[in-house]
């Protein structure tokens, strides 16, 4: 036996930390339009390359290029732009409201707006999303009332879920939006189950699972992949890789794999990787995967490459763990700016219309906020009754809970 080598532990770390210069030189980005678009019925084994590239449509110059382009009209894109703007303005106002003490907590989608807003456009009425806390765009794209979202955030008397959940943990069945859980990733295997149920029932609806880069390490990520793969469930499994999981960089979850999309290969799933800040590319890929599911061709795994430009939540200050300027250096740019520039380039939009639209949306959001605040904010008094806390634990309240409710005085 030769002299044994001493081992050492490899602990991944990001290249830069606060004080350092942002460095995205390792992020390989192909040119827009370069990645091929296989047939939706393609054999997963023949499209492994798509997990290692980045599907992009919008070029640096705002042109829509390549085989994934052309899934949306100008009008649709303008609508999408408005939705993203609405989400961003909504987020900014609610962040402020939290700072003003009108609620306890908030989480924004800053920088990631394209992912949910573009994806939702590929879905049909009746399909079901199983979202995380960073997919408010799914609701906004369907024009779910902003005031209902705010009522939930304020936990006021009109909160659709009766003050029971943390802010932004919406539930909206009629909008294909499953009740958000605070526990990471649990919804991923449920999405697969829902899709299986649709298939068992010989229905036509599909399901969509959502998860963050960090959350791919959780048990349910694996369970979802196993079940999706085994039963070939009509589900789209989305990984939003926004580079961070609170203070932890994506390399900690990704480990030795080149990409998150590659996780799908061990399960024989078609696995795509897409520019998450490119509204057109996200939509094109979503449409491809949704069609696969609808045609009973099975599940698809998609990684959206994006960047969490804000803090993880209002409890977080990213300056403690990453360079302040990192967000500005993010090589895939800002999804709203990119779509705006594209539409202007196409002659379908202008700086002026943009400014005007922004102002209109500001007004809409503000008036929704006024409406919600007129009902109440957290601690302002007009909260759901304590009685509500006892309701709905079961369909019918069992005797021990009635007793407790009475003891509580309600």
């Amino acid at each position, binding site marked *: 036996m030769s002299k044994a080598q001493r081992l050492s532990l490899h602990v991944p770390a990001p290249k830069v930390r606060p004080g350092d210069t942002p460095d995205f030189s390792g992020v390989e980005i192909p040119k827009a339009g370069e990645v091929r678009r296989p047939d939706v019925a393609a054999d997963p084994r023949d499209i492994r390359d798509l997990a290692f590239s980045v599907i992009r449509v919008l070029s640096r110059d705002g042109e829509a290029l390549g085989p994934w382009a052309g899934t949306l009209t100008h009008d649709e894109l303008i609508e999408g732009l408005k939705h993203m703007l609405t989400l961003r303005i909504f987020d900014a106002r609610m962040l402020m409201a939290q700072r003003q003490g009108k609620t306890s907590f908030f989480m924004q989608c800053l920088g990631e707006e394209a992912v949910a807003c573009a994806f939702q456009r590929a879905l049909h009425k009746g399909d079901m999303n199983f979202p995380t806390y960073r997919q408010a765009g799914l609701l906004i794209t369907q024009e779910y009332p902003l005031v209902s979202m705010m009522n939930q955030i304020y936990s006021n008397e009109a909160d659709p879920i009766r003050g029971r959940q943390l802010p932004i943990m919406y539930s909206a069945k009629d909008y294909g939006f499953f009740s958000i859980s605070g526990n990471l990733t649990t919804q991923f295997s449920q999405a697969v189950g829902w899709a299986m149920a649709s298939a068992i029932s010989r229905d036509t609806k599909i399901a969509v699972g959502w998860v963050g880069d960090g959350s791919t390490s959780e048990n349910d990520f694996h369970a979802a992949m196993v079940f999706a793969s085994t039963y070939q469930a009509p589900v789209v499994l989305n990984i939003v890789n926004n580079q961070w999981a609170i203070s932890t960089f994506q390399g900690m979850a990704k480990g030795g794999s080149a990409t998150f999309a590659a996780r799908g290969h061990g399960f024989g799933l078609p696995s795509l990787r897409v520019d998450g800040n490119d509204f057109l590319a996200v939509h094109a890929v979503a449409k491809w995967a949704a069609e696969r599911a609808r045609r009973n061709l099975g599940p698809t795994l998609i990684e959206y490459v994006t960047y969490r430009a804000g803090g993880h939540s209002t409890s977080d200050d990213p300056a403690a763990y990453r360079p302040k300027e990192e967000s500005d250096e993010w090589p895939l740019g800002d999804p709203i700016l990119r779509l705006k520039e594209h539409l202007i380039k196409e002659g379908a939009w202008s700086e002026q219309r943009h400014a005007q639209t922004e102002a209109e949306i500001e007004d809409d959001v503000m008036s929704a906020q006024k409406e919600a605040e007129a009902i109440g904010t957290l601690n302002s008094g007009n909260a759901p009754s304590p009685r509500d806390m006892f309701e709905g634990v079961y*369909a019918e309240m069992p005797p021990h809970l009635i007793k407790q409710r009475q003891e509580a005085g309600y």
Partner: protein
Amino acid sequence: MANMTMIEAIQSAHDSAMDRDERVVVFGEDVGFFGGVFRCTAGLQEKYGSTRCFDAPISELGIVGAAIGMAAYGLRPCIEIQFADYVYPAYDQIVSEAARLRHRSAGDFTCPLVIRMPVGGGIFGGQTHSQSPEAIFTHVSGLKTVMPSSPYDAKGLLCAAIEDPDPVIFLEPKRLYNGPFDGHHEKPVVPWRNHEAGEVPTDYYVEPLGQARVRRAGNDVTILAYGTMVYVAQAACDETGIDAEVIDLRSLLPLDIDTITESVKKTGRCVIVHEATLTGGYGGELAALVQENCFYHLEVPIQRITGWDTPYPHAQEWDYFPGPARVGRALQKAMES
């Protein structure tokens, strides 16, 4: 009516429920073609097809997670965890998801789901085929927890659980699968054939959840038991000659506190028996409730006769199992003071 073992009764409950309601789907490890390692789902795949009764990958988490998604869709999954000892990987989905879905979505989504699993020892299964983890479910708001002790109750309660609009944990005392067992392992096995509770209607029927069953009326002391311990308790009465009232709880949550209170107020004495480990077991909750509700009627301290606070051993199975001798001693002690 037919003579059934508890296994057959459970199979029959599945069959009746699947027959009347298309939304009922059944899956789990080895549950499909083979019909389950205990045969509780035998024949269902053949009868209802492989999309209503099927095998699952060995992922308790995935099984429960998928079932929650199916329940939210509108199906009525009734799933099997092969042994209760293997439910822990799925605990997160049960506690954080199934139990809370209705509440946290204010009824927007619901979770009508039954999770069946064999519990308890007495079969030389060692520490990973003998556990009774009911207490980790009864502590969770939003779950119902049920444990039948006879073929008749097993079918009626399982049908009720499948009908229930909320998640139900359905615990099957595996030592009772083939016959009642009173802890006398040295005696030959008694089959259900010779027991009145082995007479089971072949048609659909429900036993409502939340109701205890007085298994033996008595005046001297109240025994609260469930599962296998119901027979152990009865044996202890016979052997000591103490006229105890044996209450088979059947439903741990919701709990039939009225039946319990009435009995303890009558007897003034209470012995609680379960197979699970003592500390933090459901017996603690029962003792707390009994003294809260019957304090001024109690003549002697409530005793708990349970599994010891150790892993369930293999060789020392009968030293671990709370048998009729131990229960009998507790009854005597209750009567002495």
